């Protein structure tokens, strides 16, 4: 496993260069750090906001963009109604604004393509964000590593990166997308309309040529607990399952 020591930058300013609404609750903010840094797919950054009286709030956000591509760092931020930082981004932040940013961070929930595969990715809601970085990294590197992404969302309109993911799925180049909607009927023939479960994991893995070498699971704590248990019940060894939980 290539889990080298992370190289971290100190706090630096980063300007917002683009804003793109992804779903009703999720908007992507593209940042250009004053001192650009290399990162690995799956890593996150810390963002820090400072009020005029010196009060600071910081939160971690996963990077959605692929490493090595020259573009800005994309953070897909979900608006949390009782949040402190996400409402600032959704209601106040504009192109040209600057925030403080630190990264890259995290050395476990990462996939450099030379770690190989196959990969099983399981994301719930905005838990898809670090997995999206891996999927984009695979595409950017023209990797042939077999990857299946099981993505659970409440409804079709909350499937973040939907068109891009379906476009990658349509290439039939070893990446497969399984969507499951928990509050709506499935829209595509092989998709599901229920919460993730053992049968779904078994069927998802059947789309890989051999059992996964690593499984990445990201989402709310409840989602990750259920999905990781489903993987274990489907015969996946706990040792190859890496999780990232929002905490709540």
């Amino acid at each position: 496993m290539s889990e080298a020591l992370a190289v971290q930058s100190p706090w630096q300013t980063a300007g917002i260069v683009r804003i793109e609404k992804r779903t009703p609750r999720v908007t992507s903010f593209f940042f250009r750090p004053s001192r650009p840094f290399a990162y690995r797919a799956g890593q996150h950054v810390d963002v820090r906001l400072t009020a005029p009286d010196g009060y600071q709030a910081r939160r971690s956000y996963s990077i959605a963009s692929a490493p090595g591509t020259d573009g800005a760092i994309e953070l897909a931020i979900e608006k949390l109604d009782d949040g402190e930082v996400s409402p600032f981004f959704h209601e106040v932040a504009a192109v040209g604004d600057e925030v403080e940013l630190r990264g890259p961070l995290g050395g476990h929930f990462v996939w450099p393509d030379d770690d190989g595969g196959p990969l099983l990715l399981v994301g719930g809601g905005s838990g898809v964000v670090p997995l999206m970085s891996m999927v984009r990294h695979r595409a950017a590197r023209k990797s042939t590593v077999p990857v299946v992404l099981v993505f659970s969302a409440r409804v079709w309109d909350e499937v973040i990166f939907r068109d891009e993911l379906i476009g990658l799925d349509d290439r039939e180049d070893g990446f497969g997308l399984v969507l499951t909607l928990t509050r709506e009927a499935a829209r595509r023939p092989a998709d599901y309309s229920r919460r993730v479960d053992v049968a779904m994991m078994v069927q998802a893995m059947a789309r890989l040529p051999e059992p996964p070498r690593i499984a990445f699971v990201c989402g709310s704590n409840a989602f990750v607990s259920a999905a990781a248990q489903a993987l274990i019940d489907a015969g996946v060894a706990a040792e190859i399952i890496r999780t990232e939980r929002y905490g709540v």
Partner: protein
Amino acid sequence: MVTRGFLSGRRPPTDGDARIPPGQYLEQGFPVLSAGPTPRVRTEDWSFTLKHGPRPIKKWNWAEFNALPLTKMTRDIHCVTAWTKFDTPWQGVLVDDILADAGLEPPTDFTLAHAFDGYTTNVPLKDLTAGKAMVALLYEGKPITPDHGGPARLLVPHLYFWKSAKWLNGLQFTTRDEPGFWELRGYHIYGDPWREQRYTDDP
């Protein structure tokens, strides 16, 4: 750098300010974070081993461990993901009492905590003794749930909470301060919240 338009925020209550380390916010819930699936460890399969290097010194099963003196500890805890929770009530066995039961004079100044899922984290001996740390068995008077590290977790409340290893199954004396799981993956070797030692490069 003042952020344009960031005015309010979720400020800590005034009387709690002094209890919230820099960069932290006050959390009322109890978030769950871990690097892998939650192991379900049955108490009949549970054991705790004290080691010096590779050599086991003493091993306790669940009943033997629960027969050690129980101590209450109510402490503020601080997660590196920036939440702080006040007054978390734990009960468990002080590391002091574990060492006493083993009849052990600490052979080195460093330890590595081990967990059932293979997780490790390093804590200097001085941060575990003199009543500073325990192996917690109860939270709010009840067995610790698997999500929060039950049956037993380390509790080192004055360091960032990743040091308080969940699903604990051993403590190993090491000759050097050996980085554990997160310490090898970008997190600080010591992790003092009051000095904001979150990541490797923090002073």
